[in-house]
């Protein structure tokens, strides 16, 4: 019965601080993966039209990697801010799933814990922390583990943004000599790994074609139309796939 090992907390000597360190340590590989994103975000921010302070503030107060990148892309093409906020909402909706998944484990905590833990909830921290919670659901200092992961992630993101901004500042007028290609090429590297099944391929093809067709719609609303069309296409193909299996 090796299964028994999974939920036997080996935490006889655990303290809040040791749990905090364990959370940070277990997040390390994911944090290394986030480093290039943070630096690239900072580098692109200036040429996209954000100020130095604006880019730092975005990393400090929004703290959501993919939404920040998409916001940069939208700022660069002159999108109205309410549309960017709306896009942020849609892109970050997945965090509601994380939040709902973690909720049973954090509900007993006071608000002074719940509020910062919610603010620091990212893809990376969720992946690390949910593993801990499911393995040791009753361990007393799991929230310290969460805090360790979250603070390490947050600090790293601020430092990387700053490094990127500093580098970006040394390359004034980056767009003029083609650094505007850095954003599409980064996004390509982020999209390709999604193409693992037919619904995702349909999403990407339809979103791309509609983006071209709807390009003339003002305020970059064509982008929202294209994204929604892509999502609908993915869901449709997924539905067909299910029916094929049933037949």
């Amino acid at each position, binding site marked *: 019965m090796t299964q028994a090992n999974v939920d036997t907390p080996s935490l006889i000597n655990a303290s809040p601080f040791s749990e905090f360190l364990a959370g940070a340590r277990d997040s390390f590989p994911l944090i290394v993966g986030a480093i290039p994103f943070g630096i690239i975000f900072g580098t692109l921010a200036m040429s996209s039209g954000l100020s130095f302070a604006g880019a730092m503030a975005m990393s400090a107060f929004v703290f959501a990697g993919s939404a920040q990148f998409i916001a940069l892309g939208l700022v660069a093409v002159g999108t109205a801010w309410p549309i960017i906020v709306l896009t942020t909402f849609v892109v970050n909706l997945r965090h509601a799933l994380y939040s709902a998944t973690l909720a049973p484990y954090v509900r007993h905590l006071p608000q002074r814990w719940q509020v910062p833990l919610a603010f620091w909830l990212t893809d990376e921290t969720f992946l690390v922390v949910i593993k801990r919670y499911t393995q040791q659901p009753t361990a007393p200092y799991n929230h310290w583990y969460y805090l360790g992961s979250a603070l390490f992630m947050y600090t790293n993101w601020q430092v990387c943004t700053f490094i990127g901004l500093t580098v970006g500042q040394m390359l004034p007028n980056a767009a003029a000599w083609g650094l505007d290609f850095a954003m599409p090429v980064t996004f390509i590297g982020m999209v390709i790994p999604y193409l693992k099944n037919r619904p995702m391929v349909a999403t990407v093809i339809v979103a791309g074609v509609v983006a071209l067709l709807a390009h003339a719609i003002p305020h970059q609303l064509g982008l929202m139309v*294209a994204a929604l069309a892509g999502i609908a296409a993915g869901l449709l193909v997924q539905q067909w796939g299910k029916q094929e299996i049933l037949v």
Partner: protein
Amino acid sequence: MNELYLIAGMAVVTFVIRYSMFVVAGRFEFPARLNEALGYVPPAVLTAIIVPAVLMPNGESIDLSWTNAYLVGAVVAAVISWTSKNLLLTIVVGMAVFFGWQWLVG
């Protein structure tokens, strides 16, 4: 572009999403259909940004010719990403091809 409104708005919606479920979880079920749809959001949004940027670099007309360095760089980046699954390598090679192509044809 009002940066203050933009960042404040993004910060508020992001926090509300992350915090809301701590408050309401257990009181209602997330519709399965919405769950599935959310999975398609990142590739759909990213693609809708990439395709016009690559195929309409001047912002007006579609340029499918081999002299379009954005297109050539994008195709190479997609191939590298597909074969290596390495983001950093994709960016570095994609940028190098883009600059090289621009220099060669420009």
